[in-house]
């Protein structure tokens, strides 16, 4: 199965720019640890992943009555914003959940990717 791992919010960790340099270093090491843990786990493959710009840089497209409406800002009007994502191939929900423990303590949404095959 393929999982979309959405770093959905800063959670208890707080926003990146308010972290001390030591904390930022730790977060970077945790991202590295997640990569390594995925690589080490049999049946798991990191398909992709990126960090995203701040939600204020986002553009939202909505189609209403056939008309494309373009608005400034993120889709969800949430105070916490999406920080990045991974696309990971993993055998099951328990495996990917376990791997996510090595990520920084962000709020994370796991969404199965639709299998078009």
């Amino acid at each position, binding site marked *: *199965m393929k*999982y979309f791992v959405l770093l959905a919010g800063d959670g208890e960790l707080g926003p990146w720019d308010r972290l001390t340099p030591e904390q930022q270093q730790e977060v970077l090491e945790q991202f590295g640890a997640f990569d390594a843990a995925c690589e080490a786990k049999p049946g798991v493959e990191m398909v992709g992943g990126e960090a995203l710009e701040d939600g204020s840089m986002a553009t939202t497209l909505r189609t209403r009555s056939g008309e494309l409406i373009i608005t400034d800002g993120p889709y969800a009007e949430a105070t916490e914003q999406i920080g990045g994502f991974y696309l990971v191939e*993993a*055998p*099951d*929900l*328990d*495996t*990917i959940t376990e791997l996510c423990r090595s990520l920084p303590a962000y709020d994370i949404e*796991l969404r*199965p990717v639709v*299998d078009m*095959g």
Partner: protein
Amino acid sequence: MSIWADQVIAETYRSDWGRLLSLLVGRTRRLDLAEDSLSEAFARASARWPTDGVPANPGGWLYTTAMRLVLGGLRAEAMRGRKTPLLVVGRNWVEPVGADDLGDERLALVLLCCHPALGPEARCALALRLVIGTPTEEIARLFLVSRATMAARITRAKKKIVTAGIPLSSPIDDELRTRLVDVCRTIYLAYTAGYAPGSGPDLLRSDLAGEAVELAALLHRLIPESNEVRGLHGLLLLQHARRDARVYNGGLVTLTEQDRSRWRQDELQAGSQLVIGLPAGDGYAEELRLQGLIAAEHAKAATAAETDWPAIATLYGRLEVLTGSAVVRLNRGVAVAEAEGPRSGLAVITGLDRFLPDNHRLHAVRADLARRAGETELARASYTQALAMCANEMERGHLQHRLDSLGSG
């Protein structure tokens, strides 16, 4: 002949549904298809056994029929070019080989149903439906929602399991240990479904309750060091030991009026030993222990008059502090009434209507306490209210009889 066949079908459904389904699911990894096929196999049994005769091995016949239906379903899907995702299996999963030892498969199914990625209400409902085979209508009643709502909840939970990749795992590993509270709650609710008065003339379904006791016993054998599981097993043994005394002459018999010679002493002793030996704890384990100690107090009394009601009222008080449950307070009211008199009991249950708006038992308890306190008007109004809310025929008979005996005011 046909009545006998119907009986065998009903009994096989109650005793073997979960075992057959878990085996089918383990083999085919298709939750939906396995459930539909097993339901259809039971429907075919109902159509054929009354005329063709009951097969020598009813469970085996149902399994073979259901398996054939699953394979037919898979072929039909392949013809239509439709590929339905399979249930994911955990790394440690071993496919079941035979029909001899089905215990662990059933537990794997419980574990699947109790996964934290499912909503709490969905977990219990799904476990009841899949492991015990409780009809959706009765599960809906248990959770106080409409049949359509419950059916949708169960369907969504099954879809989520497959789509999100919640794995079918072998039961003994770290994941089970961390999920024990949910598993225990699920089994307890499964038990309650058989123990609580149901709809229609089938007052108590002790066979169904027995399935849950069996699951608890199995869990206890596998994880003897868990206090939750031990408390659950003890509590269920104690409650289930009274099954033969609960119904008499087609009527519901309250605990104090039960013929105690019909209580199963060996089970009461085994259950008491399990709960009395437990250390005080917290959370759900403590809840189970306190409930078990209450049941053990009842078991200890040779006659209803010898019941130590002050001790029971104290235990309910601790349980109420722990859970904040309105149902527990209702039970404490009953215990306090026995210990200190009906007026003290009425005081305890004052103001509960807000928390238990659709609960006929609150009105039935209030009616009984008011009757004993000589408050005939309150008793009459409460019996009438209880009757308006109660769906169970036998309980309604009991309530109507009480109301009639008050005389016309």
